[in-house]
Every structure is written in structure tokens, then in C-alpha cells.
């Protein structure tokens, strides 16, 4: 620091209420204005990728669940997807739609977790409680479908763990219908509150060009007006057969990212309803899981899908044995948080929690 420089570095985190997880945001502040920022991550590094090299292929699925506590379904899904692509396996339709239902349930509950955290970031505890109240119903559905609330362990290489239980369809549709009514309460608490709007609108601006250049993905990118969603542009598990819209907002600010996530929840409800209708037309005798070989043929493969937070990708190098030679994880938050300097440049310190909250941080997958 230059002696005549009036700026100073402030370290926010790792034990700071704004950082959802263990990470540090070092900011250079001139008075109250942020001039520069630098994210420091790695507190939660546990050698996930190296651990995988000592395990056979099926044993990695429960570990992939633990990459992120609220997006466990999509992470184990992307792992199963890459192994299926390496083995050249085509799933049955029933397994595909079951995965759609599970993924979208995961997306809704993950976005609700984000909304709850967003509420506490802005000092609105009511939103926190109400969002978690709604989330609880989706976790109960998770228990019914997969057997556990968070660490679902549901996708398997070649299908899913089990078919949906009896009456699951009824319960799922009831929860979704109720959720679509109750979410308007949350909307009333957020979108109609001028306090919320004044903290969200016009802060954390990242332009469309920057969003694409920094490699942002997911709602963070779509909130800046980039119209890209892997579910539509690189369709997997029959997303192309369902009728839904990609939520895109050209606001480019925190409020835009908020709106994209809220809209995605409504769209996910639609997708669940359609997938349930499709599941009804598929005979229940169709297998939900097919037998797969133990060994993966030699080669490199990657698979990507739309996580609630962005584009999650896994890259697999197999050497023909029953253990992966290398498994690389591309985490969406790792890339999004790397651009945090551009998010907070020029804003006031008090706005940082509101801006970084819209990224939906999850450090389990970032540090691996």
C-alpha cells in the first residue's frame, strides 16, 4: 500500500455472516467505496478428486452427493452421466423422467435455500423462515423418493435407485401446487418491498459481455441477459421433449439475478408437472435401472448439466479398470466467485452481502 494511499484492505470472512461457507473476500476500500476485491478460497479443500481415484465407480455416487448440500441430486447426476457416456449406455424413458423430477425438485429446494439465505443477508428474517418452510416440503418429497433428505444418493449408473413410491405422484403434485400459491407470499415480501428493491436494483452490475467473458454460468449469467441454458441448448434426459422457458433477464444487476431464480422456480414446477404426466403414460414395468459393466472402457469423457448454480461439469479419464484414473470437477461457483472483483467494484461495503448473496455460494463444490 502506498503511504499516501487512503485505501485499505479489509478481510471479510471466513467467519463472516455474509460468506455462506468458508471463504474470504478481501476488499480494498476507499472510505466506504470498494476499489478492488480478491476472493480467497480453499478453506474447505478435502481432496475430493484424489479420493475418487481410490474408489470403484459406484462408490463415488454418495461422495458426489456431498459436494454440495443443497444440489446433491444434480452433482450425483452429472457423475452418473459422465460414466454412462463413457460406457455408452442409454437410459430407459422412465429413469430419464424420474431424474427430471428429482433434478427439478432439487433445483426448487436449492433456490429456496438461496432465497432464505438472501433474506437473512438483507435482514429479513421472515423470508428466511417462510422459504425454509416451503423447502421442508420438498425435502419431505426427497425422503419419499430417495430415502434421505439431503444426501439423496438417488441416481445410479444406468438409471435411478428406485421407482417412485406409491402415491408419490399425488404428493408431489400437491406440494408443487401448494408451493405455487405460497410463493406469492415470498414475492410480496421481496418484490413489493421498496427496501428490498432499493438494495437490489442497480447494484452488482455485470454487463452481458462481461458475463460471457468471465465464464459465468447459470442464473448469474442469465440475470445479465445471456440466453443460455444447458437444459435447452444441450438437452439431456428428455428436457427437449418438455415445454418450458428459459428465464432470462436483461437487468444485469442483483435484482435481475433474483428475478431469474424466482422465475426458474415457477418453470421447475411446470417441468415437474409435465414430467409426472409423461411418467404416467410410461408403463410401470419399464425398468428404472439397467445393469452396467464394472469397468469403463479406456478414454476420456465429459458431461455437463444445468446445476441450480450454473454449469456443472465432470471430466473423466478412465484407464480401463474399475476405478477412475482422474475425475475433474468443474464447479460453477468456482468460476462465478472468481469474478467477484467485478461484481463489487465501485459499490459500498454495506452492499456486498446483498450482491454476493445473489451468487448462491456453496463452498463444498468450489474447494472440493
Amino acid at each position, binding site marked *: 500500500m502506498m503511504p499516501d494511499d487512503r485505501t485499505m484492505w479489509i478481510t471479510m470472512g471466513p467467519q463472516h455472516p455474509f460468506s455462506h461457507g468458508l471463504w474470504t473476500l478481501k476488499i480494498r476500500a476507499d472510505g466506504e467505496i470498494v476499489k478492488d476485491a480478491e476472493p480467497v478460497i480453499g478453506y474447505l479443500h478435502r481432496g475430493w478428486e484424489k479420493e475418487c481415484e481410490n474408489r470403484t465407480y459406484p462408490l463415488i455416487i454418495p461422495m458426489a452427493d456431498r459436494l454440495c448440500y443443497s444440489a446433491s441430486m444434480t452433482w450425483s447426476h452429472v457423475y452418473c452421466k459422465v460414466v454412462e457416456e463413457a460406457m455408452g449406455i442409454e437410459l430407459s424413458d422412465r429413469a430419464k423422467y424420474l431424474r427430471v423430477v428429482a433434478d427439478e425438485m432439487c433445483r426448487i429446494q436449492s433456490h429456496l435455500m438461496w432465497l432464505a439465505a438472501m433474506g437473512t443477508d438483507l435482514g429479513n428474517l421472515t423470508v428466511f423462515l417462510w422459504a425454509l418452510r416451503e423447502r421442508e416440503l420438498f425435502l419431505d418429497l426427497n425422503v419419499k423418493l430417495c430415502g434421505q433428505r439431503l444426501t439423496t444418493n438417488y441416481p445410479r449408473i444406468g438409471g435411478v435407485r428406485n421407482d417412485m413410491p406409491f402415491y408419490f405422484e399425488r404428493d408431489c403434485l400437491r406440494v408443487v401446487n401448494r408451493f405455487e400459491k405460497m410463493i406469492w407470499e415470498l414475492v410480496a415480501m421481496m418484490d413489493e418491498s421498496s427496501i428490498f428493491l432499493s438494495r437490489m436494483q442497480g447494484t452488482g452490475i455485470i454487463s452481458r459481455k462481461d458475463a460471457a467473458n468471465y465464464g459465468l454460468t447459470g442464473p448469474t449469467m442469465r440475470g445479465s441477459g445471456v440466453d443460455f441454458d444447458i437444459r435447452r441448448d444441450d438437452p439431456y434426459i428428455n428436457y427437449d421433449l418438455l415445454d418450458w422457458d428459459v428465464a432470462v433477464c436483461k437487468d444485469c444487476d442483483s435484482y435481475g439475478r433474483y428475478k431469474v431464480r424466482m422465475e426458474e422456480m415457477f418453470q421447475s414446477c411446470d417441468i415437474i408437472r409435465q414430467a409426472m404426466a409423461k411418467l404416467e403414460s410410461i408403463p410401470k414395468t419399464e425398468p428404472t435401472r*439397467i445393469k452396467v459393466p464394472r469397468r469403463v472402457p479406456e478414454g476420456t469423457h465429459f458431461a455437463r448439466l444445468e446445476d441450480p448454480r450454473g454449469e456443472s461439469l465432470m471430466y473423466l479419464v478412465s484407464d480401463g479398470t474399475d476405478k477412475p484414473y482422474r475425475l475433474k470437477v468443474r464447479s460453477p461457483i468456482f468460476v462465478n466467485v472468481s469474478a467477484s472483483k467485478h461484481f463489487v467494484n465501485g459499490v459500498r461495503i454495506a452492499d456486498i452481502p446483498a450482491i454476493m448473496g445473489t451468487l448462491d455460494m456453496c463452498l463444498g463444490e468450489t474447494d472440493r
Partner: protein
Amino acid sequence: MVIKYLDKFPKGRNARTLWVLKPMWVTLKKMFKTTFHRPVTIMYPYEKEWLPDNYRGRPGLIYERCVGCGVCMRMCPTKCIEIVDSDDNGKKVQRPQVNLGRCMMCGYCAEYCPVNAMIVTPDYELAAFTREELIYGPRKLAWPNPTPGMEVHLEEHLLSDPERGPVAYHITDRPELNAGKCIGCTKCVKVCPTDAVEMQTVGENDKGKPIKVPKFDVSRCICCENCVIECPKGAITIKEVL
């Protein structure tokens, strides 16, 4: 811009005049509702939540079915299962023992168990005062009333559809012998938990002694791969049938 939910949303003057009254009205309504509504929480230790059939709690064991093959031990991602000596009516047998301090309730032991002896139980109250209490021996792993839903089958469903009925579990992989490598040590016979391997004389060597190679009884084999692991010369492999 595809943000549809805002279209259904009261916009313009009306929304603006109610800028703080609307959220307050919503919370006030909720306050009255929760005051007179029955409680949404449950009094936990006295009443417990209803659990679905495929709830994955701690692993359990149906002692009579177990053959002690050790598949659960090898499939456990956290290596919390150990095969220990146990006493079955005076007979010395091998049975799994689970260290619940490490267990992450993934249900793989139940899923991969070839004889459906390992089950997932709906037991989630696992707090203990010492670490030794968390090590569940074969007898402690038992669950009083195991229902078919607690068995998880490898290639099959759970009890998703009652009309569909149970589907028989088939183990299709088979051990295969490379007779050229076999030295006739009979280790595979000793290690087989279901006595599916027996030595068969196939000929005589130069000194007139019989050459014996193992033969696998397909109807009894559960494909536990113990013979594959035990074989000193790597003569036995698993032939996968897809």
C-alpha cells in the same frame, strides 16, 4: 426477457401505494393463521415423524439369511463394515459388524447384498455416550420386524408399486476358471460361503496323481467374488453377463 411471474403481479400505481402495507398485511394474515391453526411442528421425543418405507436409516441385518460373504464390507464407501466371528447356535460363523460412527447411511450394503440379509432400517436415533457403543455387532444390528421394503435390490425397484409385486432378484455374473493357471490349491473351496465350489478330477499328471480343478455350482453361487480375491494365481475371473 423471459420473466413471466412478474406479469401476474400487481404493477403500477396500486402496487406502489401499498408499498409497505402489502407485506405487512401478508405477515399479519399469517400471524392470525398460525395463532389459530393447529401447530405445524411436532413434539419430537413424544411424537415422531412418519417415515416412508424406503427411508434409509442405519443398516440392519437379518441374521438367519446372512452367509458372511463380505460383499457389504467391500462395497462400503466409508469402510465401516467389518466381518467378525459370530456364534450361531454354537456354530462359528462370519457376520458383518458396522461401525456407525463412520456410516453415512448410503444403503449400499443393503443394495449389494446378494442374499438380502443386509437391510436399511428406519432407525435414526443413534446417539451414544461412547464410541464403542456405536460399533454394532451382528446381533445388535438386528431389526425387530423387517418388512420387504427395507430390502434394497441391486437391479430392481423398491416396493414402488404394490400391484407390480416383488420381482425376483437374479445374480447373473458368474466366476470363470482359467484352467491353465489353476494349481489346485482348493482355496476357493474353503472360502466359498455357499459351498458352491467343489474340486473335480479332470485327469492325471505325469506321476499318476489326479489333477483337480474347481467347478462352480451355478445354482448356489451368489457371485460374492471371494474366490476371485483368494485365488493365488489369478485363475478365476468374473464373467459379466449384461
